[in-house]
């Protein structure tokens, strides 16, 4: 494992639960490693698989989708849809050659600031262990090296 490796982690948070959870982690001054960026979506089901593919293409090493706990979705069933979507996308990403750990789905509620900290730190450690994504910046511009 490369000690200097600073992973690029993208975190999609749903507006109603996980983003509020992340906010709580912030105002509670919980320490999280600075290798992640948060994107807020109105619902985790708004996170189109295309977004995740695009993120990987642009060099993200890991993607975390955070949604409301089962039964808590603001839109009744959005998180179930996300769960199925991420499960199939994970299978497809594996076919693309990525480790299945690079895409993770977690349930984080608005009150779980501590859980947000724990999940994100844990995910960053896991991705650091895995190393850079095979679709990372070094792969870009690779020509017809037949």
């Amino acid at each position, binding site marked *: 494992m490369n000690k200097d490796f600073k992973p690029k982690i993208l975190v999609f948070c749903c507006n109603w639960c996980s983003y509020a959870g992340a906010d709580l982690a912030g105002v509670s001054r919980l320490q999280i490693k600075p290798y992640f960026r948060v994107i807020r979506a109105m619902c985790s089901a708004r996170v189109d698989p295309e977004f995740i593919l695009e993120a*990987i293409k642009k060099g993200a090493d890991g993607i975390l989708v955070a949604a409301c706990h089962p039964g808590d979705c603001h839109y009744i069933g959005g998180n*179930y849809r996300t769960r199925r979507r991420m499960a199939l996308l994970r299978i*497809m990403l594996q076919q693309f050659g*990525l480790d299945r750990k690079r895409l993770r789905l977690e349930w984080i509620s608005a009150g779980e600031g501590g859980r947000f900290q724990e999940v994100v730190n844990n995910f960053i450690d896991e991705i650091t262990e895995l190393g850079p994504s095979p679709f990372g910046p070094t792969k870009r511009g690779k020509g017809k090296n037949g």
Partner: protein
Amino acid sequence: MVPVLSDLQKGERVKMADKLKLAIARGATCSGCDVEIVDINEKILDVIKIADIVYAAVIMDTKLKEVEKWDDGYIDITFHHGAIRDSENEHIAKLFRKKSKILISFGSCSCYGGIPGLANVTNKDEIFKESYMDTPSTVNPDFVVPLPEWKDETGHKLTLPRFYDEVFSLDDIVTVDYYLPGCPPLVTQINQALDAIISGKLPPKGSVLASEKALCDECPREKPKKINIERIYRPHEIELNPDKCLLEQGIICLGPATRAGCDAKCIRANMPCRGCLGATAAAIDQGGSILSAITSILAISDKETQLSEEDIEKLVGQIKDPLGTFYRFSMPKSLLRKVEKEKK
């Protein structure tokens, strides 16, 4: 209504003073596109009234060396079919780009990589190993493989095109003026394209000469309000109702994520759409788009809360090869393009 060329002959819409010069160039292709061009049948007579075919490997004997001698822009329109996967394909693509006023990416291979594009799940070394070593009918203990260059004892040199590690679509290599996707493009699509060229009513450069909408828009089947399926079937496993939506019957149909313009030919023959016209105008990635659609309807209704992660894996695991199914024709044009292995 699709305008036909014989109608065009009567009008004065043919603006080009001289006869048009047409060429049909080819890359990595099965030549099904050539067959489809021949399938315009007697209309070919109308075509040769207004145009000379100056290069078409399938029907005539013009050599590439002669093409190289022509002035730049000598050809009016080139239809290029086939993907780019070796140095000869690349040379032909660049040559015809230089010699043509309009270059049309013809067929799914040329537009999106097509079936040859599926080679992007592997690489050159693995392909060579499979073809020249591992196939049961091959005996090749020294692993002799084709080389781009070889000299015999007398110094006589033989060359072969260099095989690339990756498959490219035509527009990865050169600028393309129009896209005419389909595997192969239908006669009606070809006629529409020819009509547009002849009448001078060309859409903006870079246009796809097909519909902007999804195939569901022109699907003749009954459209259900809500679909919920729990089991995925393959077409041979059940008897298909020809009037009901295929997705509703548990068949993976790429219609929702595929461009319309083929008049739903496969669906009329009671077979699901495989996605040869590529992603719709609004989507970036055909596979991501259909993955999203399929997982929205593949659900065990009312029991979601009780399902474990394993149950969900099992549910979506019914789709055996999502990559091959969802990117059957568009792998080199997908966001990730190619399989890359994790470094251990």
